[in-house]
């Protein structure tokens, strides 16, 4: 091995001095971690609510009726699905950046992440939390527009399946 190769210490220290290389401050890493965490949480919340919205959309249009299928496909808010997938992809990408992710089988994390979002979306939809947030919270504008575009009465569809089963 040549002398030049062996004496990396001098080269590195000279580069640090000559190029005036500085360390990133601790604040840089604190802010970076905080933003990554916020991004992860935001993408999860977005995905959960979008799953709730998709369920709501399926319920109002009737997923099984053949004659309603074309209507559902034509008016289905595909942007929601795209946003949900995007949210999941970003969330998974952020998860991969965290140290702990490699210690568990990555497939388990991805499946767990997707199942957690679907279950959380379903629970939020079942408890009516999304309705409250969409009527009173920040989503009320989007919801009103959605109701108007699709000619839906608020509350329509909730419990429809249960009622159908009861009267058969």
């Amino acid at each position, binding site marked *: *091995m*040549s002398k*030049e*190769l*062996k004496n*990396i*210490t001098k*080269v*590195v*220290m000279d*580069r*640090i001095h000559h190029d005036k*290389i*500085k*360390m*990133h*401050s*601790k604040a*840089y*890493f604190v802010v970076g971690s905080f933003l990554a965490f916020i991004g992860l949480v935001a993408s999860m919340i977005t995905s959960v609510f979008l799953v709730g919205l998709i369920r709501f959309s399926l319920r109002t249009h009737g997923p099984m009726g053949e004659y309603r299928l074309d209507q559902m496909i034509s008016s289905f808010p595909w942007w929601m699905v795209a946003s949900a997938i995007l949210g999941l992809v970003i969330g998974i990408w952020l998860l991969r950046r965290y140290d702990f992710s*490699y*210690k*568990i*089988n990555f497939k388990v994390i991805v499946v767990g992440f997707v199942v957690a979002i679907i279950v959380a979306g379903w629970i939020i939809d079942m408890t009516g939390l999304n309705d409250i947030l969409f009527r009173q919270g920040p989503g009320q504008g989007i919801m009103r527009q959605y109701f108007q575009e699709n000619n839906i009465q608020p509350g329509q569809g909730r419990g429809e399946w249960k009622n159908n089963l009861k009267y058969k």
Partner: protein
Amino acid sequence: MSDYEKLSDEEVVEDVRSKDQELYSVIVERYQNKLLRYAGNLIKDEDRASDVVQDSFIKAFINLNGFDTKKKFSSWIYRIVHNETINIAKKYQKELPILDDFDFQSDESIEDNFKQKETAAKVKKCLQEIPLLYSEPLTLFYIDEKSYKEIGDILRIPMGTVATRISRAKILMKKICQKN
């Protein structure tokens, strides 16, 4: 600076961050040969290995405040070199010359030393014929003497996967060495 020889890597890093940045040379001194050998085994080109190690040390210096001193510095710096090496390997994917002067240390007699060198040369030749996926954990385990946990930390894979890859690497090595 000789007082720092007794300190652990993590303690020196703490002092580099809070007291004197010149102490970073202690860290570089400790790791330069190990990392050169590691990078050399991965990309099989001395000059590029040297560049990779230099760049990795600079990158580590810039991000030193992001290192958690409760963890092992060794795994952290190896991880940086691993990433840099993989980037370089992707950039220059063509076959590179075989290294012949990355030595194995030994305190045994000349004859034993010769035999060991001969074996080491054969092992290195075989090692270069197996895929990087298997050769890297094998190198880290036998040449760099890292534990399964450290290898897992460096390669970002679970310990079970480390064990599987080393086991498969040994089978592959055996087949290739016997063929040669």
